């Protein structure tokens, strides 16, 4: 007999209103941009080059990330060793690592005068160059290899332990285990992981800003920034924004049906006992993959810590005021995110309308710089947009986090409705009391996690603020970028360490809040 769940009686309007205001902010920006574009829109040689580079680097980044993630995930799935849990947790770290901090770490290791280049110099070899396509893809892989690894690992860990027990009892060789158990999951997860990374890389800005540039390595997002910032050509910025929307939007829509769910935590990460792959050769192979991945991820992080400690004393005072600015922008952004994500995810968890889930992905496709450009155009006739730089940054950051937050919260909301919908209805719980007494305590853990992601993402974001800000107003990532641009590398490294601490600290504070008193 069918089991019925009682829809939960929160206000039926708050969800659509919250979603509607997000749409309004995006559509208003789009309309403003379109009004400035010169019709008919024409594309120059540089624009086509930006489009080609954007798609090509996204494709390469997604491909490399996924191809290397498979052996790493396989090694992690079938090995148990001391520190495995820590390593799996660290795979989540790039998600909250500020992009510009990672770039700094990669430069210290792989840059022209970085550790690897110095090592090569000892053998008389030329230094590495990570500016251009190489660097952009390297940085994207640094961020997305762990994401892909986690997605694949999650898929494999969802295979019931009994199946591996059966495989062990039958003595199935690794090849057969792969074909019968691992491959079907891989075939489901890999296209989704590839699509997600491809879409994320399409709208990547900070990596292209720091490691790309020039006619051969400019993304559309970077071209918008340059048109806006250096040429102040609003028409061209508008035209590029539309191009970006079409490219990223169609990719996101195409990817929608294969996107994997984003698990809040790998909390129940119990390595499954496996009996395949016991040979010494396979063990060595797995060890090598885990070692390579750990080195690739950990060494740049260590480099930030090492060079940052040295640079802490050399930071100008602006760095500290920028850190303060960043902290409150992130706090504001997180509050906005929570206020939007809670009603939207509750609404989406209850609605039967299939298009609802697609709404959450619009945020992935809408380029932050397009929204920023649009709001610059809207504010400009009435006030100096620089005065609103930080507010707009906080709002845009909240919108960037929204798709992730909604995907994290929705399963928890669905569970609350399924388990406590009838009981709440029978007791007449509704409105705010329902939120306070039932929903918030039940979704506290994923809410804390989502808020932590949003805070870290906002504090580390170098995007809209770069468009708007003047000399007086800067967030910490922007300040750090300015230090890098003026070759004050030591001070920039110190700022990177401060920024990293701030991002991890804010994430930890929110996540710890969510886990405290959170019950299963």
């Amino acid at each position, binding site marked *: *007999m*069918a089991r*019925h769940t*009682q829809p939960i*009686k929160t206000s039926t309007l708050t969800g659509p209103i919250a979603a509607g205001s997000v749409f309004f902010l995006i559509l208003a920006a789009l309309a403003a941009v379109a009004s400035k574009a010169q019709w008919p829109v024409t594309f120059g040689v540089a624009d086509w080059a930006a489009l080609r580079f954007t798609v090509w680097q996204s494709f390469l980044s997604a491909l490399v990330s996924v191809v290397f993630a498979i052996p790493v995930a396989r090694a992690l799935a079938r090995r148990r060793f001391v520190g495995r849990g820590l390593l799996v947790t660290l795979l989540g770290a790039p998600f909250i690592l500020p992009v510009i901090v990672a770039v700094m770490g990669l430069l210290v290791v792989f840059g022209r005068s970085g550790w690897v280049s110095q090592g090569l110099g000892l053998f008389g070899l030329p230094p590495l160059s990570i500016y251009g396509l190489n660097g952009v893809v390297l940085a994207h892989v640094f961020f997305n290899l762990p994401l892909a690894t986690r997605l694949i690992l999650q898929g494999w860990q969802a295979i019931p332990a009994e199946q591996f027990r059966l495989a062990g009892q039958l003595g199935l060789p690794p090849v057969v285990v792969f074909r019968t158990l691992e491959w079907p999951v891989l075939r489901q997860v890999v296209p989704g992981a590839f699509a997600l990374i491809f879409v994320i890389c399409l709208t990547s800005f900070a990596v292209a800003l720091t490691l790309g540039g020039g006619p051969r390595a400019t993304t559309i997002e970077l071209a918008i920034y340059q048109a806006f910032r250096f040429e102040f050509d609003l028409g061209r910025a508008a035209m590029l924004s539309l191009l970006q929307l079409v490219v990223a939007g169609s990719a996101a829509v195409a990817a929608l049906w294969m996107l994997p769910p984003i698990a809040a935590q790998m909390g129940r990460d119990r390595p499954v006992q496996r009996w395949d792959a016991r040979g010494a050769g396979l063990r060595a192979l797995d060890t090598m993959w885990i070692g390579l991945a750990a080195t690739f991820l950990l060494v740049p992080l260590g480099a930030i810590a090492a060079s940052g400690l040295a640079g802490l004393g050399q930071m100008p005072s602006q760095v500290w005021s920028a850190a303060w600015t960043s902290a409150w922008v992130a706090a504001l952004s997180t509050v906005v995110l929570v206020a939007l994500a809670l009603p939207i995810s509750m609404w989406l968890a209850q609605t039967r309308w299939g298009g609802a889930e697609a709404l959450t992905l619009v945020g992935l496709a809408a380029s932050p710089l397009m929204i920023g450009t649009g709001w610059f155009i809207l504010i400009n006739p009435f006030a100096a947009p620089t005065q609103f730089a930080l507010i707009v940054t906080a709002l845009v950051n909240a919108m960037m986090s929204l798709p992730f937050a909604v995907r994290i919260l929705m399963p928890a909301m669905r569970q609350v409705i399924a*388990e*406590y919908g*009838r*009981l709440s*209805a*029978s*007791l*007449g*719980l*509704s409105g705010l*009391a*329902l939120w306070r*007494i*039932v929903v918030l*305590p*039940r979704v506290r853990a994923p809410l804390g996690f989502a808020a932590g992601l949003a805070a870290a993402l906002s504090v580390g974001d170098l995007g809209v603020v770069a468009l708007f800000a003047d000399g007086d107003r800067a967030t910490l990532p922007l300040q750090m970028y300015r230090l890098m641009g003026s070759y004050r590398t030591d001070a920039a490294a110190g700022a990177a360490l401060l920024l990293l601490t701030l991002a991890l600290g804010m994430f930890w504070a929110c996540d710890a809040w969510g886990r405290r*008193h959170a*019950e*299963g």
Partner: protein
Amino acid sequence: MLKVEGLKISLGGFALQASFEVDAGQRVAVIGPSGAGKSTLLGAIGGYIPSEGRIDVGGKDVSNAAPDQRGIAMLFQDGNLFPHLTLAQNVGLGLRPSLRLTDGERARVSEALDQVGLAAFEARKPGDVSGGQQSRAALARVLVQGKPLLLLDEPFAALGPALRGEMLDLTSTVARDTGATVLMITHAPEDAERAADHVIFVDEGRVEPPQPVSEIMSNPPPALRAYLGR
């Protein structure tokens, strides 16, 4: 007290029809094979499953009322308590969904917990007490709710036979104290004989009107006889 008239529920391929009356103060066991529609029937009366027809509780038409506006308290198979709230808070929800209780209401909650033998457990959470104690806490809430009709969808099914009997007795006490009419689903004829005075037999979407338990058990109709295996 409860009057069901031309009730019709269709869920996919399953259809259920019912017309019957239950007098005030009766304790009615709803029995029948799995999948016969017992839970569906109670779900519709409680307002959790959409249905056609008319449902009167205490002389008032509640067919279109929300679950909490029907004068009905209901205990489900599981999930009768919020695990993150203390037992006292869970009981308090029966008085005020906002949980902002007056001193008098707080005393009422303590009294109810005392009545079901949980005086020392007010500050505990459901996860820290036994299954039987969880059932007692849910019954304490029924006590403070003081609704005229109580629906039980096998809330004690997971308990052992002795404990289940104990809970049925406690339910009868609670029902007597609040003057509530009871409709309870059960699989076990001995439960019906222990805690009910009437029986409604449900089979393949048909709902027989209530009959005195001694009569129907001593002379069961063929379908019920087949179900009971007698």
